[in-house]
């Protein structure tokens, strides 16, 4: 059974068509990146999967349920470009937020927070406040929070977009390690080609006006990915492939109808 199933989804905001005729299936354990220029609707698509907005027509389902039911069942965790930590809560309390809302008792929460801090390598920072952490550390807290209740699906909306290149590459490695350790499925929005190729098992290339899927590229680089993956000739081939697909999408846009 697919983790995510999107059938003929269209989304219109007033006059503009943000998404048109989107079909996509994501299998368990996949790492799928949505890539495309601004305005191609990749974040919109992510929000439709998360039932944060509703499609104008068509349907999204998660774990075989309508997206709305999946949200109510807390089937997914979400990470935004900004860490969106509550600055009146400590790191530990931020990670425990979804657990509080799911009414876990205190002991279970404490144990789980400890486990998550180890996972994102922030043990020792539990009593810090968000503003005492660097941007990269804040984003790791936000990932720990998203994974704390063991969701089957992790939705990430340009999570490393605001970070510098060095931090981004380190967090890419860390994310892959976490992905393998947790066994969850990841849908990852980015506009970095290298990031999409390095992380993903599949890259979904989108183009704008109206937002649509123009290509889906399987990335058959060996698992687990390492620092040397970035130097693999196959890596560059895939990067070129995605880049060309992106440009093709643009040309389509300019071509006379």
């Amino acid at each position, binding site marked *: 059974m697919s983790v995510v199933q999107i059938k003929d989804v269209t989304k219109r905001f007033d006059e503009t068509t943000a998404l048109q005729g989107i079909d996509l299936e994501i299998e368990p354990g996949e790492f799928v990146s949505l890539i495309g220029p601004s305005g191609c609707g990749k974040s919109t698509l992510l929000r439709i999967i998360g039932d944060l907005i509703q499609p104008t027509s068509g349907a999204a389902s998660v774990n075989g349920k309508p997206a709305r039911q999946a*949200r109510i*069942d807390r089937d997914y965790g979400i990470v935004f470009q900004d860490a969106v930590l*509550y*600055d*009146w809560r400590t790191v530990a309390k931020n990670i425990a*937020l979804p657990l509080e809302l799911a009414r876990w008792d205190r002991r279970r929460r404490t144990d789980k927070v400890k486990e998550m801090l180890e996972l994102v390598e922030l043990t020792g920072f539990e009593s810090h406040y968000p*503003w005492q952490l660097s941007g990269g550390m804040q984003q790791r807290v936000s990932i720990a929070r998203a994974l704390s209740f063991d969701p089957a699906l992790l939705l990430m909306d340009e999570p490393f977009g605001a970070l510098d290149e060095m931090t981004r590459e380190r967090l890419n490695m860390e994310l892959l390690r976490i992905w393998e350790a947790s066994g969850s499925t990841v849908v990852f929005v980015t506009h970095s080609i290298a990031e999409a190729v390095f992380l993903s098992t599949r890259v979904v290339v989108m183009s704008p006006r109206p937002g649509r899927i123009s290509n889906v590229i399987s990335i058959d680089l060996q698992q687990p990915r390492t620092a040397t993956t970035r130097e693999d000739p196959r890596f560059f081939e895939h990067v070129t492939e995605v880049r060309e697909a992106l440009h093709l999408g643009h040309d389509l846009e300019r071509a006379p109808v």
Partner: protein
Amino acid sequence: MRRGVGRAVLFVLVLAALWGLWEGYRWLWIREAWTWPFIVNDTSMPHLHTIFQALWSSARPGGVGPLLITILFHAALFTAKEAAVGFALGAVLGFALGALLAHFRILARGFLPWVVASQTVPILVVAPMVVVWLNPKLPGPLQDWGAVAVIAAYLTFFPVTINTIRGLLSADRRALELMRSYAAGNWRILWKLRFPAALPYIFAALKVSATASVVGAIIGELPSSIQDGLGGQIINYSQYYTTQPTGLWATNVIAAALGITFFLIILVAEKLVVRRAPENVA
């Protein structure tokens, strides 16, 4: 700790500067015999030290009876009781009203102009009406001062309502999406996100309201002819101003001290409650 010492030094320096300004102004206007904007003499601007001397001498001429500061201290305690109850009442009602209006935005559109209008009615008009309406209905222990507390609440609730609305609606859009992704209900979004996000706004309002509640209590005492508070003392000493101007000034000093005390209590509470990045702390 070092910052605390620095602040104390600064406070003393500012105090000394203000003292110097008062005495310097007095000295210059008297020497030049300037009459604009008013003639300066010991009645219109007594020496500051005579005001403090008056505090530590007997209230009545001739040196009999309790010290002025003792009388004013008891009056201040009485007014503080009215102001504190009024402040609590106004803060709770102001928050509740703000939460209600923030939740039902349509209600806010229709209702907010009336809330604003309520504050344009001079408190001196409202106060006697509140006393006339409420006093007959109040039980014995609340008689008289209960109505004054309501007047203080009337001045307290408005800033709290306005800032509660702003604060509750200030929660980050992404933070709200996050709560939605956790399938959190409206109540839990209110208590776990909107309310903590609103706290800095609410405290900003409480600081304004804390001093306003003291003013409200003093003004409320005037039409209800309550003698036990600072309002009664102000009426009393303004009648004797030409012969004993220091009495009214001393009462002013105590009233200001009471307002500052209220403000400081809220400031301490804010430091204990609101966790924010240091650069965001006012």
